[in-house]
């Protein structure tokens, strides 16, 4: 876009929605979600399967009408101006949704024509070169591997030079190398002023985002930078390693003061919100031979598991 010269730290908000709610068949899939994404930021959208991530993204780009709530996307009302939003938003669906029976070039030309870009052939050619698909442009999209499909889908998304990318689990089922390349590309785009909302299940991807939002059972539970989200859970964490931590886990479970236990290889993360209660709870085990106790910082995963567990409790 022409205004891509704005700096990354510009406080302009590209997504600003309040109290979005959507039900399907009487079940609230998205419940009172408010969210804001700043320009040039990569905003991670996390949550377990079926938590309402896709529904939220669809409401943002006008594919679903919220039952209640309002807000803007790129300054346009999501309820009344979805035509303008469509023109400026690149939406990458969870499932590959380009035409499998069209070639790479034909798919890109189709997108260029629908968006009314001048010189669709030239635009498609440039995109093919940028994607590193030169020489394979006549290959049918359906014959591409998962990683290449995902690259092509992203290429088609950014072809009309949108101001905002909405990516719905773009790296699901893609190998680590392709995932890394993908994220490098996303960061390069963000550096150019593009804003990105990306949903994912992967912790390492979440940590590569400028900000994250965590949603479970349709409710937004946390939002902010990674550090803010971790701090927001108020967890105190101990890492204990030793030969038989699995056995230890069953002993520690249900002890008052311990709110979360998660095994990590040969070690165990034990966390609680109340530092004194937690220390009391683990006191009897601290001197057990063979175990090494270490006070550590909670990881993002600790935070998420805790958030999820607590939301489950709320849900029940």
């Amino acid at each position, binding site marked *: 876009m022409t205004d891509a010269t704005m700096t990354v730290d510009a406080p302009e908000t590209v997504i600003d929605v309040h109290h979005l709610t959507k039900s399907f068949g009487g079940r609230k899939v998205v419940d009172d979600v408010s969210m804001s994404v700043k320009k040039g930021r990569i905003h991670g959208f996390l949550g377990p399967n079926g938590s309402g991530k896709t529904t939220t993204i669809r409401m943002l780009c006008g594919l679903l009408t919220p039952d209640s709530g309002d807000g803007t996307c790129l300054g346009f009302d999501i309820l009344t101006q979805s035509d303008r939003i*469509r023109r*400026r*938003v690149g939406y990458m669906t969870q499932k590959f949704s380009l035409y499998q029976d*069209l070639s790479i070039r*034909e798919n890109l030309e189709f997108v260029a024509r*629908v968006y009314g870009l001048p010189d669709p052939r030239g635009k498609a050619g440039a995109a093919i070169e940028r994607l590193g698909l030169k020489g394979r442009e006549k290959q049918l999209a359906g014959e591409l591997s998962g990683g290449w499909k995902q690259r092509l889908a992203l290429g088609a998304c950014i072809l009309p030079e949108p101001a905002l990318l909405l990516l719905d689990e773009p790296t699901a089922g893609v190998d680590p190398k392709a995932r890394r390349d993908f994220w490098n590309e996303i960061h390069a785009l963000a550096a150019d002023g593009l804003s990105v909302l990306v949903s994912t299940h992967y912790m390492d991807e979440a940590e590569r985002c400028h900000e994250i939002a965590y949603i479970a059972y349709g409710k937004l539970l946390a939002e902010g930078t990674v550090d803010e989200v971790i701090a927001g859970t108020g967890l105190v964490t101990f890492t204990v390693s030793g030969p038989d931590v699995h056995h230890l886990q069953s002993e520690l479970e249900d002890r008052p003061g311990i709110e979360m236990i998660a095994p990590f290889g040969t070690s165990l993360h034990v966390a609680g919100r109340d530092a004194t209660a937690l220390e009391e709870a683990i006191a009897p085990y601290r001197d057990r031979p063979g175990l090494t106790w270490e006070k550590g910082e909670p990881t993002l995963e600790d935070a998420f598991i805790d958030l999820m567990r607590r939301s489950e409790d709320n849900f029940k």
Partner: protein
Amino acid sequence: MTPAPDSMNGNGNGGSFGRFWAMTVKEFIQMTRDRITLATMVMLPIMQLFLFGFAINTTPHNLPTAVLMREDSDVGRSILAALKNTDFFEIRSVVFRAEDMDALLQSGKVLFVVEIPEGFERSLRRGDSPSLLVAADATDPVAASSALGALSGIISTALENDRQVTFAEPVKPAFQIVQHRRYNPAGSSTLNIVPGLLGTILTMTLLIFTALSVTREVERGTMENLLSMPIKPLEIMLGKIAPYVLIGLVQALVIIGVGILVFRVPILGDPLSLAAATALFVLTNLSIGYTFSTIAANQLQAMQMAMMFFLPNILLSGFMFPFAGMPNWAQWIGEALPLTHYIRIVRAVMLKGASIETLAYDTLALAGLMAVAMLIAVRRFRRTLD
């Protein structure tokens, strides 16, 4: 006819036509990728045309017939000889008892029995105008009636030629009806079937093509992507219909070409009128198919809806059965079907030499049906996944 209120801002170059064109190009490429469907589109009309044109004939020949001779007379023998000489009837057996006649008819071995009653020759010579009995298996009324029509002609010719029979006082009928079979003097049913088939084949294939078009995108998951793009329902519809107009016209050309070359069907009227009416009919069917596609939840449902629509088109349009013979309610339904109007136009133009101006009612009816279908389709088309 812009369906969306907030439409034209920030759409860049090309505008509405550009998006329509994008859709058309895409659909056209997808159509050519699907080799089997493409082959079907060309082969189906030819196959159907040969099947209907050669196999189906409502003026039948070699109908299995028996003669019940109640008397052995010269007249009876001349009638028998005359029947044998035509290719309408094939005399399978000559019987002498009524029970044999019944048995033959019931078992389906013969479809007709001509009964020459006792004393037929004597009554004839006296000028008593005796009755000749014909029993027909009317379970197939079409075959029965056309053969019965032919029968009286054959027998009266046979009797006139028979020099041995002298009529005492030939009874002149009070008046005579002179038949004049206009536009199709030979009464050839191929002449009627080819134009009818043109409409039927176009209806069947075109309905299905567009009936699948939207549901296919939904089932393949590409609809979600398409809906997130700045393209409007009307542009999607026209873009999806356009490539098939070409296919429809090619099919029409093939059918008319084979009709002229193989079945000697004339085009007495203005070929341009025929082309214009055909283009309109193609568009109407594509629009109706597309409407089904916006209503159906999946491709199977869309196919079923297309079939549900196709059946009355065949039965009530006057293609299979005479339109005028149907009860009023059926005629009303028939008037609402595009095939009815198109068959009238095609028969009039090809066989009667009419031009489209004299067929304004049927042309307008087609255009009206198309407009209604398009309106419903654009209104039905959901721009969201709600």
